[in-house]
């Protein structure tokens, strides 16, 4: 109803602060071949620089995708830089990865000798560490991207401290594992709330009132249906999370809705996986007979295969599969990027009108560090 009211409002001049229509998020295609060219060059440079270029690669891609994403008709601007993301990554390596590597090594060598029965506990610690890394990476990524995104010159900012989120992810991950995932809805809600509540879009305060109770039934049902739906019920939970986040979040006078169903989430995700790996799977299926034949004809009778013989027999038939994989990566990844953004734009509903004069600049995020391991844990 608010959106209808917004659309009914009178449009005024571009310098006016008077609200016009309810803002919408939209995406204007950036040009397929432009993205393919950029992605191909980036891929080449990532290979040549032993992956160091990836920080600059992601920056260039974001610049283009952001610039073609419009909120209320005006494009977003990405102001992040490769060097900042590199710094964030190096900080994580120095402060987290290096100490953990040393600790895990020490535990493997020393503790296992002293108490071999603790191997499972060590594995659990390792899994928790990985979960923690992923969660931390995502938060750092969101924080960095928010602070480096501008609309009409106004930037966003998350309020939470990394240290607080670190502690939150640690105990919520532990509790989720210990309770056999029953705590997961609360973990998700607490993390989302920590990230969003208190954030700012310029001077507009963002509030997020999501709670674990909003998600618990969806999670339990998704868990129960998991074996019967081959895991697809998790998309239903994912849809529920998106809907609840949107329903419980406000930015100043703006309210949100997210209309995607579990099926639509599944189609997006499965479609993206099919785009990236489908061609290689199809080629593999087509070349399997030739591959087996090559192995059979190359077999030296009763004698077992040597490594070199197996490699020689497999390389030629595997080349088309590799080509399909690389080709899909180069040619179809840009489609995956745009599919994700379009999905967001199509399903996000913004309600309310915003007085542009009331949207004032947020304080700058003083950090020069980037997003830690986000580039590795949080795909575009």
């Amino acid at each position, binding site marked *: 109803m608010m959106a209808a009211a917004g659309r009914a409002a009178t449009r005024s001049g571009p*310098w006016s602060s008077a609200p016009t229509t309810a803002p919408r998020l939209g995406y204007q295609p950036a040009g397929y071949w432009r993205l393919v060219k950029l992605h191909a060059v980036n891929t080449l440079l990532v290979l040549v620089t032993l992956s160091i270029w990836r920080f600059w690669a992601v920056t260039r891609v974001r610049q283009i995708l952001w610039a073609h994403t419009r909120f209320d008709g*005006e494009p977003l601007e990405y102001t992040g830089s490769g060097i900042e993301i590199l710094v964030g990554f190096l900080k994580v390596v120095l402060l987290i990865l*290096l100490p953990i590597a040393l600790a895990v090594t020490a535990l493997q060598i020393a503790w*296992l000798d002293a108490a071999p029965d603790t191997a499972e506990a060590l594995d659990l610690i390792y899994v928790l560490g990985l979960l923690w890394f992923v969660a931390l990476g995502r938060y750092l990524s969101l924080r960095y991207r928010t602070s480096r995104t501008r609309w009409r010159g*106004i930037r966003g900012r998350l309020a939470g401290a990394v240290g607080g989120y670190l502690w939150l992810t640690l105990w919520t991950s532990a509790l989720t594992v210990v309770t056999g995932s029953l705590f997961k809805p609360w973990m998700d809600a607490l993390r989302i709330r920590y990230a969003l509540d208190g954030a700012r879009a310029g001077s507009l305060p963002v509030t997020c009132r999501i709670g674990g109770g909003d998600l618990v039934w969806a999670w339990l049902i998704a868990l129960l249906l998991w074996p019967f739906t081959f895991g697809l019920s998790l998309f239903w939970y994912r849809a529920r999370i998106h809907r609840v986040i949107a329903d419980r979040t406000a930015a100043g006078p703006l309210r949100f809705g997210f209309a995607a169903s579990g099926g639509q989430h599944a189609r997006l995700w499965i479609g993206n996986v099919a785009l990236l790996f489908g061609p290689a799977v199809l080629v593999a299926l087509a070349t399997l007979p030739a591959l087996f034949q090559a192995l059979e004809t190359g077999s030296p009778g009763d004698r077992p295969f040597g490594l070199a013989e197996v490699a020689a027999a497999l390389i030629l038939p595997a080349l088309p599969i590799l080509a399909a994989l690389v080709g899909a990566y180069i040619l179809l990844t840009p489609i995956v990027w745009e599919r994700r953004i379009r999905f967001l734009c199509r399903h996000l509903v913004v309600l309310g009108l915003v007085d542009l004069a009331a949207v004032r*600049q947020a304080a700058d995020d003083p950090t020069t560090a980037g997003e830690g391991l986000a580039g590795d844990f949080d795909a575009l």
Partner: protein
Amino acid sequence: MPSEATLYDGVDARAHTVAVRVDRDRLVLELHDPDAPPRCPLAWPLASSHPTAEGRADRLTVTTRLAPDARLVIEDAALRAAVAPVLNRAARRTGQGRAAARWAVALGAAIVVIVAAGGLMTRHAAELLPAGWGGRLSDGLLEQLGELHPACTGAAGVAALDRLAARMSASLDLPPPRVVTVQWGLVNAFALPGGRVVLTSGLIAGTGRPEAVAAVLAHEIGHVARRDPLARLLRDKLVDVAVAAVFGVSVGWAGTGTVAAFLLDGSYTREQESAADTIAIAILNDLDIASGPGSGFFDALARKESGLDGVTLLRSHPLSGERAAELRRRGTGTGAGLTAAEWRAVRDICG
């Protein structure tokens, strides 16, 4: 004739329509609506004005160091063509960017120093750890290896090798190592952390002489005495971290310290090999075992297997002519190390 553009002053989100013209060394912005003036300068020196992130071909967004939050959006093609060439792209480099670059260099250097120092310290760290440390890890690896290459169980052969290893380690005042022979055609031998030594059936078949088996075993016990496998394990972990730092992912977080790593992950350093040789020669001399057949075996191996089909002893223990000659020259022993019956049992250890 000035053309129109949109100005965001960076203070609030309102748009201001302005006329833009280039006046010598400045961009001059003239307001269309003086009643709602922007709160940013309206004369932008060209030297400090630069395009922002380039994401669109159909618009030019300019900012200035005088008001870094302000944005001037030019969509008019003619105006874009007039303004773009006179902007100073170098002005984009901010103090924040330079600070980030300094941080990157400092952090990168710190990581390199820590990893390098760690690499150098692995030897000392390994020496500080108790003799048996890493043994459980090695037993796990041997269990995995056993699934592909079962351990040989010929009781007499196992006992003969255990006796020989016990005599060798006793001469160094070390606890006896656990010697495992596996059914594997590969000509190889390697030591694992915690005093484990692995010989392959291919090695025993390939040597043809008990003295050569003894020389190889003595060499591996030399590595055990020096804690080389443990030092290598620690070094591998550090290399893994360094690789993760470059590539963003750990390629072998759980893979380092595997049998494959011990076979494939390069070799010990020349200094480590020479030191293990020195210990081996001392052991062989102490037990009166001839070193000539051992060095002869290495020479023959080097001649025959220059192609390195698979992973051979030479892959994990690079052998130089000098080292083989040293083994021959400094060896004083004359015995075989094993009795004829023991040697038969060892040859039949895998059935």
